[in-house]
């Protein structure tokens, strides 16, 4: 049986390491004590020797990836030896194909269909098992077997393609922080056993997190993102809200939130700047006829987007009501699929977390996303004098493939303008 090579614990405090370089290729012979790969820890770069002689049969974790200590990263053995089951197979079906590293088995959270469970999917038992192990959603895999049955090879091909994309992303400059508020502990789904030899707690991704991760990654690698920052005067907005919120509560039973006000402001502005209400459509721009503004809602399981449909045609009360109701449903895990789909523009608010400004990730295929920071009293110069006024940094990220900085800037200014004169939000 082939010998598993693990990420070594090189120091008392080492928790993980990044494989910076494989010094051998798959198929190369290696001698015991001959350097096999290099590892970067927080302290230094180290050369690591092979513990056995043989042939490098398989590289499980590629360069550039960070893995916890003791996780299996490769196999060395005699040609034709199999790695320990259920490791990726070295079969004639996929010669030379680097199988994907076995991820912790991801299982669906409360209610969501876990990958591999199916209503009408045809997939062999082996394919299902491998899909579970690799965290592949069978619904996304095309089956090449009879009657469209998904076979093991199909799952591995899918995982490998995904791995290549992820590797490409990992090699790119570091990503900015996600626009979502930090997700609290994911819902404790039935956690599978951690990868053999890994140290530290491994949490499988719940479905929301997984979708989020995939969309963020997809956005990051496709959208040409630029972010504009504008410190916006919110003094009037604060006063406006203070005057109206009790009324709203008493008369309409809704909370008047800044989110609701911003939705209306943006909706209005989107009508004036249709390019901001457009979609990237494969080397084309699709102008959308309706304005549906999504609002990012943080729930325990992760980040959801609740969509206020036809926001430009709704009153402030209606918008507030929509947001209120959807947020409540989202927190109960009852937000419907229809309520989360179809946004043409998104707003995401981190002000409550003490964040002043940030660089939100565009929600593809939308053209732009508005990040809202902390509303606070700040020193502002008005007519040469220093005043304390409420301001809020608005951060507008946009897809430069669709729209340029100037129109985006115009749009942002218009939003700022409306918010600075919040009476425009009512009766229009």
């Amino acid at each position, binding site marked *: 049986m082939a010998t598993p090579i693990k990420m070594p614990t090189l120091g008392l405090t080492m928790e993980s390491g990044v494989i910076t370089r494989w010094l051998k290729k798959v198929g190369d012979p290696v001698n015991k004590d001959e350097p096999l790969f290099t590892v970067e820890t927080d302290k230094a770069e180290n050369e690591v020797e092979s513990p056995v002689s043989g042939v490098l049969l398989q590289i499980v974790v590629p360069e550039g990836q960070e893995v916890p200590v003791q996780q299996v990263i490769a196999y060395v053995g005699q040609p034709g030896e199999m790695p320990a089951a259920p490791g990726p197979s070295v079969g*004639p079906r996929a010669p030379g194909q680097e199988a994907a590293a076995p991820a912790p088995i991801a299982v669906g959270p409360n209610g969501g269909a876990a990958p591999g469970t199916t209503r009408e999917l045809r997939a*062999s*038992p082996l*394919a299902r*098992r491998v899909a579970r192990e690799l965290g592949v959603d069978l619904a996304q895999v095309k089956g090449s*077997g009879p009657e469209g049955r998904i076979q093991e090879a199909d799952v591995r091909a899918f995982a490998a393609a995904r791995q290549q994309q992820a590797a490409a992303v990992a090699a790119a400059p570091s990503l900015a922080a996600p626009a979502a508020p930090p997700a609290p502990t994911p819902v404790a789904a039935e956690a599978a056993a951690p990868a053999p030899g890994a140290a530290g707690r491994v949490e499988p991704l719940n479905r929301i997190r997984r979708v989020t991760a995939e969309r963020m990654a997809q956005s990051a690698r496709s959208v040409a993102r630029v972010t504009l920052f504008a410190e916006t005067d919110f003094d009037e907005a604060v006063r406006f809200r203070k005057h109206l919120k009790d009324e709203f509560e008493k008369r309409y039973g809704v909370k008047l939130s800044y989110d609701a006000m911003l939705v209306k402001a943006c909706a209005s502005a989107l009508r004036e700047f249709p390019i901001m209400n457009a979609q990237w459509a494969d080397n084309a721009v699709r102008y959308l006829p309706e304005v549906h503004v999504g609002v990012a809602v943080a729930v325990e399981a992760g980040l959801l987007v609740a969509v206020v449909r036809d926001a430009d045609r709704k009153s402030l009360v209606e918008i507030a009501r929509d947001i209120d109701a959807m947020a409540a449903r989202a927190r109960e895990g009852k937000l419907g699929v229809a309520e989360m789909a179809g946004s043409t523009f998104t707003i995401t608010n981190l002000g409550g977390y003490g964040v002043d400004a940030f660089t939100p990730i565009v929600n593809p295929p939308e053209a732009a996303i508005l990040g809202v920071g902390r509303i606070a009293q700040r020193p502002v110069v008005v007519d040469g004098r220093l005043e304390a006024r409420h301001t809020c940094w608005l951060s507008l990220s946009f897809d430069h493939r669709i729209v340029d900085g100037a129109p985006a800037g115009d749009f942002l200014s218009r939003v700022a303008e409306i918010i600075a004169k919040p009476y425009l939000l009512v009766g229009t």
Partner: protein
Amino acid sequence: MTVAAARPGQEAAVRELTYAQALNEALREEMARDPRVFVMGEDVAIWGGGGVFGVTKGLVDEFGPERVRDTPISEEGITGMAVGAAVTGMRPVLEIMYVDFTAMAMDAIVNQAAKLRYMFGGRAKVPMVLRAQEGAGRGNAAQHSQSLEAWFCHIPGLKVVTPSTPYDAKGLLKTAIRDDNPVIFLEHKVLYFTKGPVPAGEYTIPFGVADVKREGTDCTVVGIHTMVHKALQAAEELAQEGISVEVIDPRTLVPLDVETLARSVRKTHRLVVTHEAYERCGVGAEIAMAVMREAFDFLDAPVERVCGKNVPIPYAEPLERAALPQKEDLVAAVKRTLGRA
């Protein structure tokens, strides 16, 4: 294949023997070793020197007519007598000329031989061997061509053996004779004249140990008797197309070495079971189920069966050929498991 110990003064030579000769040697050796062992059946002593297929050839000359006993045509009677002799201290090796005739002897096999030990609370044993031969391909038609191992596998208390090579036949028959239980030892008429290496010197083959006749990685084919050989031919053919087939011969159906079969399927992810017996309720179904339980998560395709059709074996050659599973059917089945036409 290792030889345990050669007789003193003899080299551990390997001879080419026919399946029938290998069985003959087993009988000869066991009868010499244990005076309680005796042979009886129809035409076992005199016909053609001993037995319609020569399996008992020359035995009467060596051991005499008491121990190599021709009987009248009385399948139920002689099978019952084998039971009675076995339960009172002898070790009979009964021959039923064609497995099809075991139908006459069913009470003695199923209700007596298989059950006496259990019904008597373990206070008796029935150390008998019932040898019979199965199989089609010679134009012997419906009543002389069947493979009926499934009948016997179904009855608790019996053991069922189906050797496919001379080496296996000799080693397994010796074990059967030494076993203290009723063993249904099923030979195949077409295999009697096939040759294979058989070591000189003492060896036995234990029950419940399957034999990997050919290693492979893409598909596991499990078969008995002639289907082992057809599977090996199919494997050769498929190897030309880059498909690597593992062929396993369970050798004993009861007890069945499920672990070897399952281990293979965990490696290859595909299973084809094959036997000449009628497909419906044949042992292929039992093997498929037993292996599926142990290797479900490793199956990349449904289990395939390549078996005799559900039809009495016809007489005319093209019809008989069509009724039986052939190499081509195995090739097609393996390809189906790989999702190829």
